[in-house]
């Protein structure tokens, strides 16, 4: 869905910049706010449990969060806005990337995704400050270290072996389940073909009982996600900032 200026033919951006390779569509009219995506993402990506006290201070490290906002009315006239699952928007012009002094947050040319290199991060947290969507999480402690937190000993068994377990001092965020992307790309490469849309999906899209999240190859015009992204209900979050996000939100009913 193009802006008016783009429809009028005025654009200084290429097709590639506007489109991207991997995209996601979140249908807010279908989302029930059940948080299954949050749970699935945390299990898939070894997102640590921070404990009650830290979660109360806002340090919960979920890579996707369901935003619940309501318009300022008095109880009992509470009017809620649609649930807004917010994850890393994988911006093409990501503000979090140029500000990292050590190249821990870089852009992948081949996947057109925003990469977070865990072992390079030195924890300046400038990327977190600069993300307008505030989707970046920081490891304030060694949350996954069973030596410090013995209650986690058995939970170590459920860690996903495909994903790094992060130490303290490292920034992390949604990666569009890049471990799944890599697995599918490797399989496709060994069979000598391109990855097809629908071969795999992200954990959040997989878990959603309402099928509110769709993921796939947005540059493939036949894919479900590119058809959904061009819907007239579609919008981007904070579009005025020019970050060119790869996540489209559908809202507005009908």
């Amino acid at each position, binding site marked *: 869905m193009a802006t008016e200026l783009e429809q009028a033919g005025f654009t200084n951006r290429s097709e590639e910049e506007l489109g991207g390779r991997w995209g996601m569509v979140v249908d807010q009219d279908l989302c029930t706010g059940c948080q299954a995506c949050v749970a699935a993402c945390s299990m898939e990506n070894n997102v640590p449990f921070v404990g009650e006290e830290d979660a109360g201070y806002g340090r919960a490290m979920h890579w996707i969060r369901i935003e619940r906002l309501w318009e300022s009315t008095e109880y009992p006239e509470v009017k809620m806005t649609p649930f807004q699952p917010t994850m890393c928007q994988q911006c093409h012009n990501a503000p979090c990337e140029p500000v990292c002094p050590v190249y821990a947050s870089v852009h992948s040319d081949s996947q057109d995704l925003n990469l977070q290199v865990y072992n390079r991060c*030195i924890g300046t947290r400038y990327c977190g400050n*600069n993300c307008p969507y505030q989707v970046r999480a920081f*490891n304030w402690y060694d949350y996954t270290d069973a030596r410090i937190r013995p209650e986690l000993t058995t939970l170590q068994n459920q860690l996903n072996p495909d994903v790094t377990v992060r130490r303290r001092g490292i920034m992390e965020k949604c990666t569009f389940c890049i471990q799944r992307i890599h697995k599918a790309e490797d399989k496709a490469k060994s069979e000598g073909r391109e990855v097809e849309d629908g071969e795999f999906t992200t954990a959040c899209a997989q878990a959603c009982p309402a099928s509110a999240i769709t993921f796939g190859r947005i540059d493939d015009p036949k894919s479900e996600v590119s058809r959904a992204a061009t819907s007239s209900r579609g919008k981007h979050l904070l579009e005025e900032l020019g970050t060119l996000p790869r996540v489209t939100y559908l809202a507005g009913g009908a």
Partner: protein
Amino acid sequence: MASYAKPLARQKHAEEHEEDPRQHLMHDPLPRGQMNAMVMESMRETGPIFWIITAVLAAFVVFALGYEWYVLIMQGQGVAGVTRPDYWGVFLVNTVFWIGISHAGTFISAILRVLKVESRRPFTRAAELMTTFGLVQAGLSIFMHLGRVWLTYWMFPIPNQRTIWPDFHSPLMWDLMAITTYLLCSTMYLFLPLIPDLAMARDRTQGGWLKVFYKTLALGFRGTEGEWKNLTTAMNIFAFAIIPVMFSVHTIVSWDFAMATRPGWNSTVFGPYFVIGALHSGMAAVAIVLFLLRSTMKHYKYFIRPEHFNTIGMLMLLVSMAWAYFYFNDYIVPWYGGDIWDKLFQEYAEEGPKWYLWYTMLICNIAVPWLILWNRKWRETPWLLALAGILINVGMYLERYIIIPVGVTINRMPFTWRQYEPRIEIPMTVGTFAFFLLLYMLASRLIPLIPVWEVQEGQEAHLIRKIGKAEISTLSEME
């Protein structure tokens, strides 16, 4: 002897105030040997209170910057008050604050030297020490906020076997380059005029480790024509070159915030606003330091006189007006409307839970200088100027506190808003102040804090001449 007589401007007031030019340091010369003896004596003689205070400061520094920092590193940034979305907190405030303090030294020893303001002569070294020690604290504070501080060396552009280099797109890298340049250059600039005074100390010390210390650092300086020519040439190059570096350093620090997309931070006026803010807090800190030196060091009442406090006071007033101008610029644009998020940031600072910080900041930064510093008698009162200096520094600290920890609360995703409360940052902040004082106290024992050769140089060039019925102070250009 070529001379260019320049009646000092204050002669107009001198008649009204019936001021005797002989009250000024430049017209009250003592034999150089006597001045040297006074400075050396003030370094040697000290009471037990000095050492008690030093011991207390050292113990606190070991606790705050040793033990607490150890806890911070080993447990993680979680022991500090930072969270999502308040990723930056008091450690960044401290960094900006200490870099601000450090700008005063360069202002006095470089800008006042270039402008040939003679009353700078006795306190250039005290100010330059503030620069070096302030930058040490700023460096420590920036390391404190890093999540994996043991990997800081990845920010240095050194060839390595990983063939990964730092990213110069990032304002933090410009920070590294600028602060390193500034630290190295201001330390060199501190050392250059210190060489002849170290030679004096070497000549007046008979033996022991102090003699070895002075002899090594004095580099064998004798005072030959060639040595003086090289030294003054180098000093002139530094004086002119370090001024743009000083401006660039705090501008680059301000760009850490201005380059961010956060509402309230993304302002184009931040560059000059921060530079003037740095001068504001720096000049105020100089007033405090001069007051402390004059009251505690023996014989310093000869060197640091009310006229010097007057100069500092006038500069403080001038800078406070410039600061008010820039702050008003930064305030009126969001106030006028346009971006609701910027306006929200302003309203949150003024009316939110920390509203009292905002009011205190305005009172300390604007009302205090504008009420106190107009009166010359008040400017010349050391303790009053030092008190104004303390209040201005409180105000400037609050200014940075409002920009950073209060400012990070507001962003474009209201679901994430959360207020910041400092935790381990408090003792570590006090630790940096204690460390600054400790370094200063140790320096006062080791190096002469008054550049006696510059004072004598100035005294040689000043003369009182009778023109008509008046006694006029004249300054010869002997360089």
